[in-house]
């Protein structure tokens, strides 16, 4: 009989050991699965492609960082809300709206260059994302309409709105009526920080935001984060905030950051607004947030890990002709182990020889 006994203090060792344990368990399970389904491919080479190549090949390192940046940003915003028990499930929609509003400014000033352009676009993106998440905050505060419903439904609306914009006002005038915006000029694109790759300042901003959030939480929400993994986030409140303000704060922050992430995708690796903008980042970021136990610095690492599963998974498909579903299975499994192993932080596992007492 296995029992979980709460620890008096969260285990410091386990905070670092449990992810390693989870990785090991994932690797072992994956090994057996691959050994079972792959008949004529060496499992070791699949493993190399999945876990090692993306970490030693400079191109893939740069792509890991590119992929992680938006996840870091969105997850940061969400983690603040989740601490307060505000369930913004629709960061995906706020991300899309931010891409649209920020991108619209860029398209409006298409032939203008200036140091102010990207800051102005960023402002528009943040406001767009804030507005979109703000709808949920307003409806929650005024009519007690649960934010899960509003943010989720508005995600679908955002995607259709993107489609309408790309059919209409934002369509590339010389694009043969295909639903894509014009590619942005270099002046409107985020500066590249690693020449020869797609890595841009978005990553730096994401990392800075992580530290800012970390400091902010330390200052204003001391004592809060300890409780997070185990107990009720709903009980948590921001210092000096009442319920309504907390809801506004949580949704505006997470919406604004998601909006900015959307713009950074548009003027970063994508370089234009396309119907492919929504790419599940808003949902993946929820996972990233919880994998890192809502800790702003840990978010950087869990975002990188998720990015690794994407890139490794892609390459496994390319090299070994495996279907894309392998990546989903693998990600799901990794998350299961990650979440499960975290139990060791708050609890000890005790094996008890049960004397079947009262039943």
């Amino acid at each position, binding site marked *: 009989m296995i029992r979980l006994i709460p620890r008096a203090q969260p285990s410091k060792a386990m905070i670092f050991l449990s992810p390693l344990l989870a990785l090991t368990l994932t690797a072992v399970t994956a090994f057996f699965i691959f050994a079972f389904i792959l008949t004529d491919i060496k499992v070791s080479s699949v493993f190399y492609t999945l876990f090692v190549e993306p970490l030693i090949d400079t191109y893939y390192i740069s792509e890991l960082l590119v992929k992680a940046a938006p996840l870091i940003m969105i997850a940061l915003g969400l983690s603040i809300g989740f601490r307060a028990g505000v369930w913004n499930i629709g960061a995906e929609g706020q991300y899309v709206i931010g891409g649209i509003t920020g991108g619209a400014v860029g398209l409006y000033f298409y032939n203008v260059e200036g140091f102010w352009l990207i800051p102005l676009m960023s402002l528009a993106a943040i406001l767009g994302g804030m507005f979109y998440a703000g709808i949920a905050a307003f409806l929650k505060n005024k009519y007690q309409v649960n934010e899960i419903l509003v943010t989720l439904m508005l995600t679908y609306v955002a995607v259709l709105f993107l489609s309408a914009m790309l059919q209409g006002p934002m369509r590339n005038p010389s694009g043969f009526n295909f639903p894509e915006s014009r590619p942005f000029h270099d002046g409107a694109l985020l500066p590249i920080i690693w020449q020869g790759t797609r890595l841009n300042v978005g990553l730096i901003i994401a990392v800075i935001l992580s530290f800012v959030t970390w400091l902010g939480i330390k200052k204003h929400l001391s004592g809060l984060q300890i409780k997070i993994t185990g107990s009720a986030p709903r009980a948590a409140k921001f210092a000096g905030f009442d319920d309504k303000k907390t809801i506004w704060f949580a949704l505006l922050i997470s919406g604004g950051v998601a909006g900015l992430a959307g713009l950074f995708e548009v003027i970063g690796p994508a370089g234009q607004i396309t119907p492919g903008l929504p790419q599940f980042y808003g949902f993946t970021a929820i996972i990233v947030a919880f994998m890192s136990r809502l800790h702003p610095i840990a978010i950087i690492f869990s975002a990188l890990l998720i990015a690794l599963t994407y*890139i490794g998974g892609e390459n496994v498909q*390319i090299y070994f002709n495996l279907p*894309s579903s392998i990546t989903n299975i693998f990600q799901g499994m990794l998350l299961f182990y990650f979440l499960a192993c975290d139990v060791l932080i708050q609890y000890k596992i005790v094996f008890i020889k049960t004397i079947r007492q009262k039943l």
Partner: protein
Amino acid sequence: MSNRRLTSILKFSLLSLMLAFTNSAFADPVKAAFIYIGPTGDHGWTYAHDQGVNHLKDQLGDDVVITRIESVAENSDSERVITSLARKNDIIFTTSFGYMEPTIKVAARYPDVKFEHATGYKRPTDNISTYSARFYEGRHVIGKIAGRMTNTNIIGYIASFPIPEVIRGINSAFLAARSVNPDIQIKIVWVYTWYDPGKEADAARALIAQGADIIMQHTDSTAPMTVAEEEDGVRAFGQASDMSAWGPSAHLTSIINNWGPYYADRVKAVRDGTWTETDTFDGVEEGMVAFAPMENMPDEVMWEAQDTILDLDAGAVHPFTGPINRQDGSVWLAEGETPPMFPDIITMDFYVEGIDSKYPN
């Protein structure tokens, strides 16, 4: 046959045999990669490309090593996937419109790799070709069948996204149907998805309820065909691949996207060192647009359809032949006039006169 001719044939065969021998025995096989927008099991767009790739493999055998990657979204991920492929392949086929800018970016970085982008129009470097098919010729043929086969005079059209490719198909099918049946009406439902079996089925049911007895689809799943099969007196056309298995009594024919010969040609060209940048827009004549066997229709209708195919094959008819007005009544094509490929056909963004629906904008 003269001796001289025979000798030359022999010489030629010998030469090609030697060439083939040299190529397959001594040269490395061509590494060809394909990137797909959907899963290969969609039975629509991606499935058709995948069938083409199978044909390529059959044709070239050991001369080609093929890599396929499916379900690559048309966003910033695709540039990474194309780059990964470019590092290890000789030629890369990017089989969806949304891969255009990523293909161009990667092509600029890998000048020695050949790129083939489906349905696009940009070829800024000389290692990018574009290719697509005149699918509206296929729509022309099924439009004629539809015009003959309908009893209610209503065609139901399940449309995906309002892009020129889809608009061309609607206009072409409508004009052809009206040419054989002046009372024809077309009802168009936009579902804003390429693949959602449930929604495509809902759309098909809605159209049937509104009186359509012919269903055309420009989406990828077999769902509309299965709905037509369950309703009495409703017929449907398959999209991209032969969908007859899903509608034994409803299926009239399917427009088949026949990419195989093109893929074989292009990879052979890489093997032989003769690949050059091109823009291909082939149709029935070249065999890129083909049809599943025609069924569930009277012989006269089938003969008429076959004649239409022969005419298209011979280049004798053009699906857009004037007089044609735009929906607003303005003149598009004068009597006997056919439109230029660019801009009229490539960028088409209007309905023709006679279509009642509002243009989606």
